């Protein structure tokens, strides 16, 4: 099976996910949307880790562990982010980032 799919395919998929995430991050106005985009970016990185681990150092496990860490961190981050977003929603009655600009000059 591992001979069936070349490394490039993984990388291309990861890149697409990454840039979709970036695009979403920059264009979505909804905070939840931005959070989802960030998750996409993180997952694209996860894919990269796994793919490189498998292809370059199949006998070692660092890549796997790293992606596990990332998943854990992402979960924590999502929890914190959603808590923040709920607070923002309570305060501004919106989750549109353009309206959340208290921290300007």
């Amino acid at each position: 099976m591992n001979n069936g799919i070349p490394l490039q395919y993984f990388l291309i998929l990861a890149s697409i996910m990454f840039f979709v995430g970036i695009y979403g991050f920059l264009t979505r106005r909804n905070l939840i949307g931005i959070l989802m985009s960030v998750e996409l970016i993180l997952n694209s990185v996860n894919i990269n880790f796994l793919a490189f681990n498998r292809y370059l150092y199949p006998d070692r496990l660092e890549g796997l562990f790293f992606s596990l860490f990332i998943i854990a961190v992402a979960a924590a981050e999502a929890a914190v982010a959603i808590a923040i977003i709920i607070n923002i929603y309570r305060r501004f009655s919106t989750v549109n980032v353009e309206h959340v600009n208290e921290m300007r000059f």
Partner: protein
Amino acid sequence: MTTDFGYALLIPLIPLLMFLLLGLAGNQLKARLSGLLGTIGLGVVFVLSYYTAYKYFFATEKIAGAFSKITAFDMVWLRFSDSLHINMGILLDPISVMMLVVISTVSFMVHIYSLGYMKGEVGFERFYAFLSLFSFSMLGLVLANNIFQMYIFWELVGVSSFLLIGFYYQRPTAVLASKKAFIVTRFADLGFLIGILLLSFNTGTFDFSILCDPQGAAIATGSGAAFLGLSVMTWSLIFVFMGGAGKSAMFPLHIWLPDAMEGPTPVSALIHAATMVVAGVYLVARLFPVYIISAPDALVVVAYIGAFSSIFAAVIACTQTDIKRVLAYSTMSQIGLMMVGLGVSGYGGHEGLGYMASMFHLFTHAMFKALLFLGAGAIIHAVHSNHMTEMGGLRKYLPITHITFLIACLTIAGIPPFSAFFSKDEILVAAWHHDKLIFAVEYIVAGLTAFYMFRLYFNIFWGKETHYHHTPHEAPAVMTIPLIFLAFLSVFSGFIPFSKLVTTDGIPFEGHIDWSLALPSVFIGLVGIIIAMVMYKKETSLPDKVAATFKHGYKWAFNKFYMDEVYMFVTKKIIFAYISTPVAWFDRHIVDGSMNGISRLTNAFSFRIREFQSGQLQKYGFVFISGVLLLTFLMVYLWN
């Protein structure tokens, strides 16, 4: 026989102590007591001065036939460099001893007189404190043994004059007059200071005994580099003379003197007639050897300024109606005459006649002018007015004042045997031998002097019968005794053999009266008196007619040739409007403006770049990601 003059230190110190005592504790003392204290202090000085004069002139051995210069006291006060240091010392020589007599006499008389004149005034003790301060500074000035000490006391007399002119400090005119006096003389002192700077660096010393030694090295080094055709020495002496001209109210620095009459009359008598205003003459006399040997050109300046001032002031005096102002211009005129005396003098023996005559005239002038002012004070005290148009027929009410005033008028008119006849005549003789033009001017001045003095005299004591609100009455004894004493001196001081006492080189010579010049000057004096008598003895319309005939001339003279206006123009317009205001504006708007401008620029710059901090999360993200991409691009493609 002793040359121990150590006690002379007391002469200036006693008034200083009196000043400190009255100035610090004056308001705790009773007014009467403080006046008495001041007077007694001056009385002691008076006695000491006469004793010094006696001892110096008659009981001290002369060296090689000349009066020696005795340094009675000397100490270093401030050291600039190894060679230049300011000393405080006491120098006794013929002119300083003579000045001691003049100052102590007039000052003592004024102290006594003021006990009556200033009685009941607010600030009586302040008045006496200032008088003591003035006496201290004036005595310090004449006793100075170096030019810098002289400058120090010169400034101190200036400030005591300022304080006394402004004695009635709640009167705006008095305040203005005192300010004017101080600033004008200060300006002149600037010249004096520059003169001292040049002089001391040319000669390397402040000390009079080195500076004025005719054989000394100091004078010989004088002929240094030239500037505008005159040597540095000449320039320095001209600058020094500028200081003297300021204090002595020589044209064009005279404008403060008439206004200074705002001060109490005894002050005018003491400071602005007898003592301080002759400081300029004294200064030139003190430096006379330097003038005559290394800068005779400067003496020419002295002579011409003196001559011009004397006729200028005499003309103005003929038109004024305020009696104190007439006397003020008369003072200026007489001081001009003294300057002429110095300017036309030579050095040594009979050549130094002008110098001797000038000092002689200084002496007699001090006596009769103090007398005139004190007499004027008695008149003002009696009728409460300064203007002679409001007076007339006072001879009946003020007999003592009348007689003494008449004596003073005859003296100043140069009628023999009164004292000024001798001194003035000798100045005229010296002028005749030196410069005929100056002689002619002074000759006319002699006539004018007699005229305006008797115009004053007849207007006050004769003239129209005036009705007074209160019948004028003669002043109390404390005021008349000084008058009588000074009248006595005015009459007889002419017989003092000055040529045996005060000469250029200290060696006495035989003086005599040159009748071929004396008679014409007596004649012109008499002419002046007679004209005045015709015009003013009875109330006539003659004066108005004369004034109408010389309408323009009269108007100019009456307005003092518009000198005040010129000065007002210079100060108000040029200094205030065209220098200071622009400077202040420049400072606020250009200099400070550029500082504010820098801060505003910084502010504006920050204002522009604050847009980066927009608070838009996605903008930050965009910038961040573009930055990362850019860097990646650079690293991948350009770094290899």
